[in-house]
């Protein structure tokens, strides 16, 4: 029972943070999809698969937060490069601030208790 509750809760938290993780992964530089997805999959605790990440990337692109471009690669299939848009950067900053504030608030409540 406790395990089920925890699992459900982590799914909710993870789901809410996944988009922020993608935006953060693109904060520094443009990255191509395969590399980006592999990086995020390998993050411990995030527990995502390609089947989840690619739809999210597409949705973020449709929402105008990231852009994508295709580039031919001599080493194999064409590579799709993702980068943040100006809106994406603003949202990412706001989301990070919010998460920081939320974490701080959570800690503060814990100390208070």
């Amino acid at each position, binding site marked *: 029972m406790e395990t089920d509750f925890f699992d459900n809760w982590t799914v909710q938290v993870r789901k809410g943070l996944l988009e922020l993780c993608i935006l953060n992964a693109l904060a520094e530089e443009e990255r191509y*999809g395969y590399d980006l997805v592999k990086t995020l999959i390998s993050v411990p605790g995030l527990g995502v698969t390609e089947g989840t990440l690619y739809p999210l990337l*597409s949705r973020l692109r449709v929402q105008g937060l990231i852009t994508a471009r295709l580039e031919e690669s001599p080493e194999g299939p*064409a590579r799709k490069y993702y980068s943040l848009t100006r809106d994406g950067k603003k949202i990412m900053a706001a989301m990070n601030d919010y998460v920081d504030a939320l974490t701080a608030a959570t800690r503060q409540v814990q100390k208070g208790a």
Partner: protein
Amino acid sequence: MTEWTDSAKRALDNYFGRMRSQLYASGADAGEVIDDLGRHIDQEIAAANLRVVTERDVQQMLQRIGAPEVPGGKQSVLVVEPAHATAPAARKAHPLLLFFGVLLPAITLAVEVATHMCAGVFFDPIPTWWHVILVASVIAANLAAWVALRHGTRYWHATMFFNGVAVAVSLYFGLLFLQLFPLALIAIIIFGLGLVPLAPLFCFAAALVVRTKLRRLAPDYAPRFWWGVGAGALAISLVAIPAPLTRQLAKIARSEDPATSTRAVRWLRAVGSKDTLLRDCYGGTAWSRDPVLGFSFVGTPVTPEHARNLYFRVTGKPFNSVPAPQRSFARGGWDELNDWTWDREQGGDAVGAVVKGVTMSQSRLDGLIDGDAGWAYTEWILEFKNVSQRAREARAQIALPRGGVVSRLTLWVNGEEREAAFAGKEHVRQAYREVAVVQRRDPVLVTSCGPDRVLMQCFPVPAEGGTIKVRLGITAPLTIENAAEASYSPPYFLERNFGVPKGSDHSLWIESDQPLIAGNENLAVATPRNSRYGGHGGIADAQLASSRLRVKRNPDATRFWVADHGANDGSAIVQTLVQKVAPAPKHIVLVVDTSESMQGHVDQVAAALAEFPASSLISLVLARDGVVDALQRSSDPTAAMNILRDLRPGGGHDNVAALSRAWDLAGADGMVVWIHGPQPVLLGNLEALQQRVFWKATGDSTAQPVVYDLQAGQGPNRVVEKLDSAWVAFSTVPYSGKVADDLRLLFARWSAGRTFEWTRERVPSPDGLSAEKGSKHLARLWAFNEAKRFIAARQVGNAIKLGGTYQLVTPVTGAVVLESKQQFDQAGLTPVDSQSVPTVPEPGTLLLAATGVALLYIVRRRQKSSRA
């Protein structure tokens, strides 16, 4: 290079298929996600260095990748089965959508195609099969969308696209039927019916509802809808707009302002629908005119007469020279093609529209040629068949050999031959109308309709497979090419209101005592037998006009006489071949028609100018949406050649104004050569040209040009047809099939400086004449020319008397065969004695043959009795 096994490919395709139907609600672009995943898998394979990808490899990769996560729910749900996606959609695909979007329009379309209900009563919503396909595509698109809403689909792009097509097309048809909305409401209220005329509106509404539901389910594919709307609008533009656009332009072309009219005609040539114009040439109900966007009743409909004029101006062809529009549906749009409507030209003096079901079932031409005496007599036996449901009149304008005259007319009544009565033109026409139109019995009528042409009409060609058979006898002078050779050309149809089935040839058989030479490949010359020469062949209708036979003649045979059978006073007709010194005209004005029908002929005119008489000046007048003075009194024919080579014939143009202009340019010392295509409608004002011909006929005019009339191809010529005394000024140049050859021959005659001409005169007695005995045809030809002379001198009564006496169809006399003696008596007409008509072979030849048979019989009898 990596290879995929078939099962591996199938496994991946299945995965993508399932994923696509689950992704549409995720807010992601399904196509993009699938592309990305495909690329990802390729990279996985490359990283793993796999040479062969098996189903197992794919399954392992897909297991790792997992299914897409659908956002928006309280819990993260990994959708695996398609059933999860279709369950909510099923509720959205309501059966009413299927009824109004698919079933009702399908029933409506089927009813209209089968019964033509709307076309017959109101307007024709589906005049072509393209319209039917458009409507069917709307029904198919709505059905596909309904299935997609209910069961999901892998083809969202296509579904959205065709939904757009359906909205655009059903909007058009909905607006089209909007005009019937009040009637439909009344029908629903009173009779409980009326859904059918509202079907397009319901269909449009259904397509819009489908559009809303589809957009909710698959928002990422929404842009495809607008592509579909664009494609639907384009399809409507291509299919449905040309007809009303053509009709609007046709209305503008009727403007009194020539510039406006010409502008509209140019637009019609560029964007108009020739098919629509042709259909309007055959009439139609007022409602079927402009069925566009509810404005059917605005403006005056295009009348058949106006449409026929326009059809020529736009296409350059007579409307009845192309097959009549025949379609199995929408018959209400074409009154005249319907079995139970009236042939408005029946009993009139125009050939008019092609009537349904009447064809020429047999055609046979038998002829005699006398090369020495320079005449030909041809009997043309025609049989017509009518497979329609009502009796019809067969009408044709027939071109006679140059200078020819109809000298016999026969109708077969119950298998018996009945000869014609020859009398004044109005007299015989009145008798024909009385019998054909009022009594609806068996007459045939032949009247003149211009130089070297007659109008033949016979009624009734009985319904349901009935036939009628007639014979025209035509006496004509041969064209003398030089002292030792003459040429013969058979009569042919210029215009007809019946069909000539493919493969129905004209069977031609010509005999002569002089050697014959085939003038072209249409005719073969038989091996001579008993000093007789024959030329025969089966000739297609399109080839008859250009068929030629040349005949050798004795250069010393220059004078013939024959007793004047019309006078019976011992007088005789003497015919003499005269060689005239005729230097080339000082000035030749070429009038060139630039209509579409001259395509290919204009270049030939240019080529023939290489042999233009060296001593003549040349002027060039073009008939092209008015008159173009292209060249005046130049001594350099190459200038005209260059102008002609740059010409691009197109449309149909008025030639009357150009002829008047050429007449004036020719002046006192010039000739006019008019090279043109068929002139099926009279576009310009004929009076100015009529005035010039009138003054020439009086012999007092300062300008006396002759118009050498060379028509390229078969078809009517309303200009010479409507001109009084046209033969005074117009001389037909026989068309051999190649304009260049005909012009070269004309130029060569002028360059040679001499011509051969038959002159005929009446003398009190043949006694002491140094001449050979000739045929009665010489007297007929003399009488024909004499009648024309009387007409020119305004002595019409004398001309009618002469035509009646010599049994000739002249410009003022005609021939009519009625069914019974009673009808002849009532009309005050007397049919000719069957012994007095010309025949093939001639009576003299028949007598000779009978004598031969009798002698042979006597010799055989004697041989038998001596053996006994």
